[in-house]
């Protein structure tokens, strides 16, 4: 019987495998950031261990960093300490660091691919759940906790249970690909399979609806695999993948011979078996807006906030969850999504802060003004994205419309740097999690695509972006 792409990558990285024991898997790239690494480095010091492969380990700071003026000192002392700790750890252990002043600084999942660190067929880990992003390149990439970070630093390996392969086919053609985006595809998938639908699996996304997407759009899809509970998301590499990585800063010297190998080997065999299957048809899907407090609580922009009994389909925990979510979100069932007014807009995060995201959002904004009661931030995913966007004049389009144009970082995705919502504020956000308090205590998050966020910023409430001219 043939093998899935996931099984091929797994098998190529086995160091030790025995029945009914964890497998020891080799890790090709380890990405490190300031929040989940300090205790891991402390552990190394306590046990007199070194970093096994500093040359395969890359660090940056993204979670804590303020996104305002970089020449100013960091006011939050605990953040400053965490950032200085990463600098010291990288110096002591000989790890390449893109620090706060580096032109390569940015969200770890944005800079990995941009620098050519992310490669097809490789295993990539990081102490961050959205490591699944790198799966867009046909890499097996997943988030780990701090104990495992320490284990990889010390040994370049991990003891893992083998996940099961899950095939998600995305079929058909979107009618308006500028208005109905990769974000709407992945939110539709999560809405349908649920936030634990992918538990214990590695998802492989296939079909015309996936091969049609650019690399940056594929990253949006794989990024949110974790929100469906999957260990990782994968897309088999194709000519778009190889072209994207060609000539980047860390692209290997023997790149073309690697491409030949990847082209022949990195695909699921026709007779391979998946444990699970799901198909989404995208011909008629609408822009998505989350209404609740997990990414599965999402509906079409043309729909209304659901009644808990309709949403839960008889499941008591789901019903209670929906009631609690509506109370937290201060929403009444039956309210049309387009009547929900917003206070804040966040265009950013490892899900949607790449150049294409900003280009698409700028088309909505160009020549218009922000709704007077809305505050909107655009936070490029990396300093490289910021520079490229500025070369295209996007910063001017956004600032002319009264949006804030900021420095790279995780920013308002996760409420641990100065960019947070105030209690009760409602935000249209291009990030990945609408959990209670995620963007700041009491803050209310609606997950949307960059064009939907931009349109909401202009109008002051959600609108169906298909009705706007985006070409």
């Amino acid at each position: 019987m043939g093998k899935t792409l996931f099984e091929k990558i797994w098998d190529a990285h086995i160091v030790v495998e025995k029945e009914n024991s964890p497998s020891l898997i080799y890790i090709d790239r380890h990405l490190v950031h300031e929040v989940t690494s300090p205790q891991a480095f402390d552990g190394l010091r306590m046990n007199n261990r070194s970093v096994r492969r500093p040359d395969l380990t890359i660090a940056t700071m993204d979670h804590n960093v303020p996104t305002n003026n970089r020449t100013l000192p960091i006011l939050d002392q605990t953040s400053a300490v965490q950032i200085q700790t990463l600098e010291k750890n990288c110096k002591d252990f000989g790890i390449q660091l893109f620090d706060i002043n580096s032109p390569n600084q940015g969200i770890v999942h944005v800079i990995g691919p941009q620098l050519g660190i992310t490669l097809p067929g490789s295993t990539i880990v990081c102490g961050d759940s959205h490591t699944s992003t790198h799966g867009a390149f046909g890499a097996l990439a997943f988030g780990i906790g701090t104990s495992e970070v320490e284990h990889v630093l010390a040994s370049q390996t991990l003891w893992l249970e083998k996940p099961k392969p899950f095939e998600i086919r995305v079929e058909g053609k979107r009618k308006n690909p500028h208005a109905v985006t990769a974000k709407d595809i992945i939110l539709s998938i999560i809405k349908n399979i649920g936030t634990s639908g992918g538990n214990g699996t590695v998802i492989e996304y296939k079909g015309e609806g996936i091969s049609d997407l650019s690399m940056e759009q594929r990253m949006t899809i794989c990024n949110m695999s974790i929100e469906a509970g999957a260990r990782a998301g994968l897309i088999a590499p194709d000519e778009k993948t190889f072209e994207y990585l060609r000539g980047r800063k860390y692209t290997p010297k023997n790149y073309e011979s690697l491409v030949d190998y990847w082209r022949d080997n990195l695909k699921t065999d026709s007779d391979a078996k998946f444990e699970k299957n799901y198909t989404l048809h995208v011909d008629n899907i609408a822009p998505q807006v989350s209404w609740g407090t997990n990414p599965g609580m999402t509906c079409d922009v043309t729909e209304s906030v659901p009644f808990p009994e309709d949403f839960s389909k008889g499941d008591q925990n789901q019903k209670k969850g929906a009631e609690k979510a509506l109370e937290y979100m201060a929403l009444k069932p039956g309210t049309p999504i387009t009547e929900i007014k917003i206070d804040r807009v966040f265009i950013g995060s490892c899900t949607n802060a790449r150049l294409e995201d900003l280009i698409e959002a700028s088309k909505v904004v160009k020549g218009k003004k922000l709704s007077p009661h809305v505050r909107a931030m655009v936070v490029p995913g990396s300093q490289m994205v910021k520079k490229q966007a500025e070369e295209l004049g996007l910063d001017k389009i956004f600032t002319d419309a009264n949006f804030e144009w900021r420095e790279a970082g995780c920013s308002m995705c996760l409420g641990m740097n100065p960019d947070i919502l105030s209690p009760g504020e409602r935000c249209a956000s291009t990030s990945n999690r609408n959990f209670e308090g995620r963007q700041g205590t009491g803050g209310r998050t609606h997950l949307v695509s960059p064009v939907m966020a931009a349109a909401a910023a202009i109008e002051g409430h959600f609108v169906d972006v298909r009705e706007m001219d985006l070409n």
Partner: protein
Amino acid sequence: MKGNVIKYERDNIDTDVIIPGQYLKVHDYAELALHAMEGLDPDFHSKVKEGDFILSGRNFGCGSSREHAPIALSHSGIKAVLALSFARIFYRNAVDGAFLLPIEIEEDTYSNISEGDELDIDIRINEIKNLTKNKTYKMKPFSEIIGKIIEAGGLFKYKPD
């Protein structure tokens, strides 16, 4: 292992409510514990006792990879979380650092156990005794792989056979 139950009747308890993002900069585990479950239940810290168990629905611990989540619960005194299912990173973090036991249970067990019930859990025989209700339930056994890491006392103590 004996303790009382704190029950949260909902699915998808995420790591952002277990330990909100602003506390990920805190390195002192005792201080982290002060903020455990703060995003969901601000009274948690005042009601939790050493040895207590949390009982909840599906997909417990979904979201971020922050190991601060099982650490904050563990240092609050929680010895085990009983849930219908767990998100994978939380599950491994709990086991890898030997912070607490993630125990999967069946729907009937979940419905039968109430807030405050006293349980006696024996993972060697996969048994949960409800001392308050005088009932016995089966827990889902750990996979052999996870059982070996738990038995060793965490990832760094685990050695292959």
